[in-house]
């Protein structure tokens, strides 16, 4: 018998939960009902920065149907939240730091009662000077937002001798780029429900990306042991990073705990807009030095980020932005400085890409400017500088495998060549066409720190297999992929494996669903557990069958002899025997990627065990009379290592392109002005063309069956490619995102003649 062909990975296994979603049977957090459940609503600041002089809740408490009004004084534990920096308050104490800061919680018998009581709270503020620009916030005398000062982080990554290299460069290009606040705009606004279980456990159902982190912060708020708090992720309609923060979890848990009744909270779209994190707006001053053949020799990149009133994932974004500042290119001499400051703007946090989409806009614009000055094609300059095996990254990490940027560029090349043949209709009275490339690299997992995942696989006495993972599937498909990986090891159809996911009482932590890490990191943890179970199955079968263990293989729920395929023993029989003899049938898996922390002075280290790569090519039509940009074609090549579920990857690529179109052309959140979808535009299907999604597989030796990740990479190259395509069409570049009607029309007025 030959080695098995893969049957469960590399195939388009049906999504876990697809049927219940299609039939409308799945319960999202807002769908959950419980007898006696009360409604929680938050009173939020309408001030940017103010002292709370007086808070009078007496009239609200007398409102019919109002059960309670809670302030920070009612919090039994520590009134601090935050995944990295504990700088958020569940409810404001002496002051508010931004519009949307929660101040008091109203609990009503009904939503209307809670709403009515909310309107009766009287609050008196004393406004404080506010600051909205991170550079101003760092000047002496700026309003202080937190006691520790306004500087969140200054991260430096340096290597080689950039000053000397710039002196030798044939060409130096320096430009300043800006990107706006961006709202995640997941389809499901935040919602949750909490109740007290029979044994006193506080149970929180929530739309979340990280139940095990929520459990810690809820326990700390309520001054409970962690095992008295259980967080269960409900079906989640997208998160994109914003559901890594505690949004409703603390509110419903506090109300349920203090009142002893189930408590629900559902954000309106307006509340989700005002209360949850945004993408960090960055100002990037980017100086590149190149030789006349296009070879990059130096980069000096100064990044200034606005984390708003709270840090959230700001330190991670600042660090990842710095580490990724040079993109998928080898640049031997670098100085990168990433400085993030607090302001009175809304909190900025994690959003698909953690700062890399912003940096990619800058480094890809630089590449096209350099190419134009040097008379090279955009494809050629990227090819010449692309990282390869043996290349060194800005942190001094030498890449040893799975460096697929060259393959991605080559996969895009035919589309690029084809687009050049469209030149005959490039120019008309009202429109110009152009094409652009965007490329990227993206480190999988958290930056330079331990970020392990765990998993368990259990064989029941009846022979059924259950996979336990703490990973929150927020729509990206982690449950499906993890089940495929287990099925491949255990040689079963994936549907035969039961899934238990993202419940802190039944699963152990898989870390956050972020940083494109679940396939690679949790996937390896699942493989570890599955391999141990497979090992036991083979050993036990050998005892039962009295044959050489090396002659046995797993096949479709039985262990079978290679020599005599008629001879087999079922998983059920093995399970029953193992149970009798006391052999454990639940096995733990663990994986932590190999990283080296970044040196605090130089940034040197090994921030990630592996990197994903991608290149997008877009063609656009620019209406020079209105500034409208239409994306005509997109080709998107992604090195994913190994496609565990190709359709799922194509889905991610399509969604990333759509999000990238929004980032490039229309999405801009104006603090204090943008309220909801009525004044915040995300692309519709009419704005997104068909996408040629190209899967490139350059296997990662440490990945599960070679896999890396694609969740965030899918988004990153699109906006830079569009910006470059607009510049190609007009001969004029926009350095600020989004390239909205006004900016593009302004650029059109100085466009090159036809």
């Amino acid at each position, binding site marked *: 018998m030959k080695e098995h062909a893969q049957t469960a990975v590399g195939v388009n296994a049906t999504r876990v939960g697809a049927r219940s979603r299609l039939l409308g049977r799945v319960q999202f957090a807002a769908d959950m009902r419980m007898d006696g459940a009360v409604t929680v609503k938050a009173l939020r600041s309408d001030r940017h920065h103010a002292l709370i002089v007086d808070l009078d809740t007496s009239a609200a408490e007398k409102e019919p149907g109002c059960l309670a009004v809670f302030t920070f004084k009612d919090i039994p534990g520590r009134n601090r939240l935050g995944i990295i920096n504990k700088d958020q308050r569940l409810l404001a104490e002496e002051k508010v730091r931004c519009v949307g800061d929660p101040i008091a919680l109203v609990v009503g018998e009904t939503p*209307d009662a809670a*709403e*009515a009581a909310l*309107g009766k709270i009287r609050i008196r503020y004393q406004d404080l000077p506010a600051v909205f620009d991170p550079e101003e916030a760092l000047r002496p005398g700026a309003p202080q937002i937190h006691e520790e000062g306004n500087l969140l982080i200054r991260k430096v990554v340096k290597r080689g001798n950039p000053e000397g290299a710039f002196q030798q460069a044939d060409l130096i290009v320096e430009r300043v780029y800006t990107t706006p606040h961006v709202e995640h705009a997941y389809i499901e606004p935040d919602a949750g429900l909490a109740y007290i279980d029979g044994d006193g456990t506080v149970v929180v159902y929530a739309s979340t990306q990280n139940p095990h982190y929520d459990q810690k912060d809820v326990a700390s708020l309520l001054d409970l042991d962690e095992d008295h708090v259980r967080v269960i992720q409900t079906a989640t309609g997208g998160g994109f990073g914003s559901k890594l923060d505690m949004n409703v979890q603390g509110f419903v848990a506090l109300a349920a705990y203090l009142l002893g009744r189930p408590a629900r909270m559902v954000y309106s779209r307006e509340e989700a807009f005002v209360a949850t994190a945004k993408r960090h707006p960055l100002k990037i001053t980017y100086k590149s030095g190149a030789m006349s053949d296009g070879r990059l020799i130096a980069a000096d990149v100064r990044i200034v980020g606005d984390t708003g009133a709270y840090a959230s994932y700001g330190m991670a974004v600042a660090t990842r932005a710095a580490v990724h500042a040079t993109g998928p290119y080898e640049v031997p001499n670098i100085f990168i400085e990433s400085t993030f400051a607090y302001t009175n703007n809304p909190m900025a946090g994690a959003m698909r890409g953690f700062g890399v989409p912003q940096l990619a806009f800058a480094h890809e614009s630089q590449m096209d400017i350099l190419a134009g000055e040097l008379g090279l094609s955009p494809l050629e300059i990227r090819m010449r500088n692309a990282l390869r095996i043996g290349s060194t990254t800005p942190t001094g990490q030498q890449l040893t495998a799975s460096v697929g940027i060259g393959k991605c560029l080559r996969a895009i090349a035919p589309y690029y060549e084809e687009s050049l043949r469209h030149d005959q209709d490039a120019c008309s*009275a*009202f429109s110009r066409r152009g094409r652009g490339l965007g490329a990227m690299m993206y480190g999988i997992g958290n930056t330079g720190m331990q970020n392990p995942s765990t998993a368990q696989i259990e064989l029941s006495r009846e022979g059924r297999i259950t996979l336990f993972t703490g990973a929150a599937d927020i729509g990206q498909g982690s449950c499906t992929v993890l089940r495929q990986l287990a099925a491949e090891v255990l040689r079963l159809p994936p549907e035969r494996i039961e899934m238990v996911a993202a419940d802190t009482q039944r699963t152990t932590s898989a870390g956050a669903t972020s940083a494109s890490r679940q396939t690679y990191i949790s996937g390896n943890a699942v493989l570890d557990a599955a391999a141990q179970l497979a090992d036991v199955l083979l050993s036990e079968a050998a005892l039962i069958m009295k044959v050489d263990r090396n002659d046995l293989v797993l096949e479709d729920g039985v262990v079978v002899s290679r020599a005599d395929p008629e001879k087999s023993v079922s998983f059920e029989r093995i399970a029953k025997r193992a149970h009798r003899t006391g052999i454990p049938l639940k096995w733990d898996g663990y994986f932590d990627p190999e990283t080296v922390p970044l040196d605090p002075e130089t940034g040197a280290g090994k921030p990630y065990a592996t990197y994903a790569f991608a290149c997008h090519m877009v063609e656009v039509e620019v*209406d*020079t*009379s*209105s*500034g*409208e940009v*239409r994306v005509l074609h997109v080709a998107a090549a992604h090195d994913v290592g190994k496609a565990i579920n190709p359709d799922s990857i194509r889905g991610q690529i399509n969604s990333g392109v759509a999000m990238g179109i929004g980032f490039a052309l*229309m999405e801009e959140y104006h603090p204090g002005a943008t309220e909801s979808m*009525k004044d915040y*535009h995300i*692309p*519709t*299907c*009419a*704005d997104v063309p068909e996408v040629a999604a190209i899967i490139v597989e350059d296997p990662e030796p440490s990945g599960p069956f070679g896999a890396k990740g694609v969740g965030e990479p899918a988004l990153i190259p699109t906006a830079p490619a569009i910006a470059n395509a607009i510049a190609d069409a007009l001969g004029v570049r926009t350095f600020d995102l989004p390239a*909205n*009607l*006004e900016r593009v*029309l*302004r650029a059109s*007025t100085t466009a090159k003649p036809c």
Partner: protein
Amino acid sequence: MKSQFTYIRSESLEQALDFLARNGPETSLLAGGTDLMIAIRNGEMFSRYVLDISRLPEARVIQLSEGRLQIGAAATFTEIIRSSVVQASAPVLVSACKCIGSTQIRNAGTLGGNVANASPAADGIPPLVVHRARALLRTASTERLVPVEELVTGPYRTSIQPGEVLIHFLLEPVSATYRHSFQRVARRRALAIARMSVAAIASLGTDGIVTDLRLSPGSVTPAPCRMTAAENHLLGKRPDSELIREAAEMVSLEMIRQSGIRHSTEYKKPAVEGLVVKALTELFQE
């Protein structure tokens, strides 16, 4: 807090007018609800009653009658788009209605509601203006026909009086020889309020001379109007790109004359000129 109110649906126009005769000042009218429901949700609708007129037969008719195209105020955008009568005699209105919102919004939203809400960006208004549409307004005891330019008096303001119901519009139909164009710019390709729009219709003599031209922009002037200076510049002439460009500048000058120079003028001036050039070029191309 959502607005609190009593919902009433009349079985007949007479009943509705009778109700309004008594409760007019305390009543908001509901047709498609695509604007009113948002106001209700935001607690910005302060009327005691909401009177649903969406099913009144008189307000749903689409027909040619006595040389006029009659379109009921409660006719939905989808019904207008699908009407062969409107397609034949007011195709620019069909083009405009196709740009509105999404399929769901077009299925619910009505032409009467679009006009009565009086958003400067209303896509339905410029086509009505170029068709010299008049609106029939009735109370229990009165009836009047008002040109759409006079009905809409400013942003979100109309001359509709409490107790009056907008029943239908009467448009001047155009013959098949008329040309038409509706141009629009928005921040995305669907589900977006127009940043600006232009509706235009024209007829040409056999010699290529412009015999009729009517041009009305949206989101350009405080109240709907025709761009007569630009129209007159081309009337009686054989249009060329120079004349078209001059006409477009006349439109942007008129915009600035009526609305003044604002922060948005840097964008709107070249953009409205672009829209007019596109519309006129489409009208007059061979």
